[in-house]
């Protein structure tokens, strides 16, 4: 036992399953979220491997068309609703936000625990749907297919409905926490950028998620009671569903990417020992993205038969939202200039993010182009684009944050060597899998195809082989992270020499987070200025 680990901390202060199940400690809740999110990722990943395996050849390999359709629906729904939306805010955000604010907990600890319970309840609905004739609608639940298919659309959509409340509670909690629980001296422009990004995210969570809830309730009413809302056979309008759905689901894309950008700002500053370049512009660009994100949903409907004039306005606004994202990239790169760059795991993932987010962003510029989108819409090009943003962007940033805060959360260091090996596998596997899909898509291969023309086979096979490399990377990561819990070296309080408040307390922190309430007298990234 070393001197830092010998004291009590939030992990060992109380014991027994009740102390976890009924805990109000944001750190324990965050950790439990992390566990459930990791399980969801494993499950969603399993479906991804299975459906890519089916696509290694045209025609039937293992599954029927219907089973394949159910698998891509489950992959999408699990990855979206159970993994990527809660991933950063509910796990890392829950753990780190109060620490970065120098607070003892979030503003409403009971609401925080409730959001975890609701998450689990929603997950149970989704898993039930899996065994009770899994939905085959795609995670977008487009009507009238979803109003008429005989699969278990209701339990899957009710799962998403329930998960929405979990997301709203977390967002609400964060907004109040950031407003009310800042310590003396921490003004708005002294907030760490991760906190800014969680604030922007929370606004979207609270304002947009109810629209998804209402849409799902309308869909269920239509299926159960035959009320005509979206199904033309009952007098409804299927395009209305698409508007409602994307009114939530496009801002939801920013629920996914904004906290990822927040992590990148933290990591690049800490690993380069350098004050972040253009702090205010990064902070404000998060808010700008959050606001504009509400006004771009129609770019999912360029070929759907919405008004051509509407399409023009949505395209214009989509281009506007690209600018704040571009600004952030330039600011991160400038932060590296004359820094002192520590190439350990969090930084490796930052570098990976920078490259893959650029690919995702530039292909987004292509898809926002009205005329070009007509050709690329609903092809593999779109599939590749959003995987570059959601996996290459958000998931990679999540991994960066996980490696950055793991010593704080668990109190142990992981193996840098194996972290590097896993990173290499993930980088190579991911780009093999998804860069290929850009080519498939622009050549005309439509998405959600069980069967395909023989000429596409070599590219599909190559893409499938990439998923195996990717899976090996994630397995290695699971092993060394679990191994570090048992065998890792105890982590120092501040292994990266970072300046934000979470590094001023023990690793892992005590239940109350800080021995004394911190007083903030400087900006968050004052490197070069000695801090006591």
């Amino acid at each position, binding site marked *: 036992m070393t001197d830092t680990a010998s004291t009590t901390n939030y992990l060992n202060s109380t014991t027994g399953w009740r102390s976890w199940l009924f805990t109000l400690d944001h750190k324990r809740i965050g950790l439990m979220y992390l566990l459930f999110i990791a399980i969801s990722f494993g499950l969603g990943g399993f479906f991804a491997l299975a459906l890519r395996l089916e696509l290694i050849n045209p025609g039937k390999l293992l599954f029927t068309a219907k089973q394949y359709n159910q698998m891509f629906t489950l992959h999408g729904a699990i990855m979206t609703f159970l993994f990527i939306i809660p991933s950063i805010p509910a796990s890392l955000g829950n753990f780190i936000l109060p620490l970065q604010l120098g607070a003892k907990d979030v503003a409403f600890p009971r609401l925080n625990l409730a959001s975890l319970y609701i998450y689990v309840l929603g997950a149970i609905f989704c898993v039930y749907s899996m065994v009770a004739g899994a939905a085959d609608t795609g995670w977008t639940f*487009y009507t009238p297919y979803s109003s*008429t298919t005989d699969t278990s659309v209701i339990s899957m959509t009710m799962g998403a409905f329930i998960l929405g409340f979990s997301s709203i509670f977390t967002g609400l909690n964060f907004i109040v926490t950031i407003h009310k629980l800042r310590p003396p001296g921490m003004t708005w422009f002294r907030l760490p950028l991760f906190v800014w990004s969680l604030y922007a995210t929370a606004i979207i969570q609270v304002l947009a998620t109810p629209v998804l809830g209402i849409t799902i309730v309308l869909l269920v009413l239509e299926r159960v009671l035959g009320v005509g809302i979206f199904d033309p056979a009952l007098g409804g309008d299927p395009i209305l569903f698409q508007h409602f759905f994307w009114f939530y689901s496009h801002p939801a894309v920013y629920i996914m990417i904004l906290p990822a950008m927040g992590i990148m700002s933290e990591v690049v500053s800490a690993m380069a020992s350098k004050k972040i370049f253009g702090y205010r512009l990064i902070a404000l660009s998060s808010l700008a993205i959050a606001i504009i994100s509400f006004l771009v949903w129609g770019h999912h409907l360029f070929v759907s038969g919405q008004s051509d004039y509407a399409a023009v306005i949505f395209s214009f606004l989509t281009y506007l939202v690209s600018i704040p994202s571009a600004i952030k990239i330039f600011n991160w790169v400038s932060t590296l200039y*004359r820094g002192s760059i520590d190439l350990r795991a969090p930084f490796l993932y930052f570098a990976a993010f920078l490259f893959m987010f650029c690919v995702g962003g*530039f292909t987004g*510029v292509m898809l926002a182009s009205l005329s070009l989108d*007509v050709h690329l819409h609903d092809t593999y090009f779109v599939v590749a684009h959003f995987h570059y943003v959601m996996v290459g962007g958000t998931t990679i940033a999540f991994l960066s944050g996980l490696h950055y805060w793991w010593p704080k959360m668990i109190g142990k260091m992981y193996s840098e060597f194996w972290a590097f090996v896993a990173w290499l596998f993930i980088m190579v596997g991911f780009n093999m899998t998804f860069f290929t899909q850009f080519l498939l898509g622009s*050549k005309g291969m439509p998405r959600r195809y069980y*069967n395909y023309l023989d000429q596409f086979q070599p590219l599909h096979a190559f893409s499938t082989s990439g998923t195996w490399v990717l899976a090996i990377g994630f397995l290695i990561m699971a092993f060394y992270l679990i191994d570090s819990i048992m065998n890792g070296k105890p982590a120092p309080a501040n292994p990266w020499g970072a300046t934000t408040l979470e590094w001023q307390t023990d690793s892992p922190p005590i239940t109350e987070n800080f021995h004394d309430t911190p007083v903030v007298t400087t900006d968050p990234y004052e490197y070069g200025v000695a801090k006591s």
Partner: protein
Amino acid sequence: MDNKIIHESLIATGNTWFPSQASTFAASVDGMFNFIYYGSIIISLGILVATIYFIWKYRKSVHAKADNHENLTHNTWLELSWTIPPLILVMGIFVVSFKDYLHMAIAPQQATQIKVVGKKWFWAFEYPNGTKTLGELVVPVNTPIQLLMSSDDVLHSFYIPNFRVKRDVIPNRYTKLWFEPTKKGNYQIFCTEYCGDGHSDMLASIRVVSMPEYEKWLATQGSGGDDLPLDELGEKLYTSKACVTCHSIDGSAKVGPTWKGLFGAKRAFVDGSSAVADENYIKESILIPGKHVVVGYGPVMPAYQGLLSDREIDALIEYIKKVK
């Protein structure tokens, strides 16, 4: 994949990224792609080179202390320089693609109008003179064509990669799509809006021919196949009328029952009744498929009432008799 008609390959023709260009839209769409593509490569390379250079030059082992001088953490002019020019660039892209999109949205007045119906899981076409085809659209080259499209069930989407056109096909309203083919040949049509089990087999082809060939084809359609024996005509129709999407001839179960050994077999229906598959049963199953659904299958087949002539129905029955 069963595909009797040979289409121009999407992968083998055209350039690295796109299939060959066969409509008047294709060149400007590809031009827009190339502009963004090369622009992205230049900017990405700039970011990549700067990042790698900084990582190498300022790695911790050689640059132990970061330089946190005030002017290295904020610079208004520098920040404006990477805000304003990208904004101007994307606005330029927006304006040009907006013009192209409007061009795609508004068909010339003299365009020939062809009706398209999407159904689970085939495409039906109706020409101005009343000629109907299934699974194959024939159009004259260098002539504007407008498609007036609707769906009989769920959403579909009509996509011709070589023409760079796509439009969703919707059950409660008409959508329109127009193009002017510039190159003769056979091209692939896909459904690109997920529509269920047969989605990936909801294919069709578009044959671009010269105007005289088109006119001759239109005039002889309907009498087409009169010179063929019934069973041979049936074999042709099996593919061209999209039966192949759901019914196999080798005994394997697809979305619908196989045709192998169908004729004369006893069929059990979901309502508990049963019957022997004779000529009347097969005719009824083609025209009113929902009336007797075989156990183990869903009521998903569209009604072919009005889509087949009497001789074509006879031909299909003869062909089914032959598949053993």
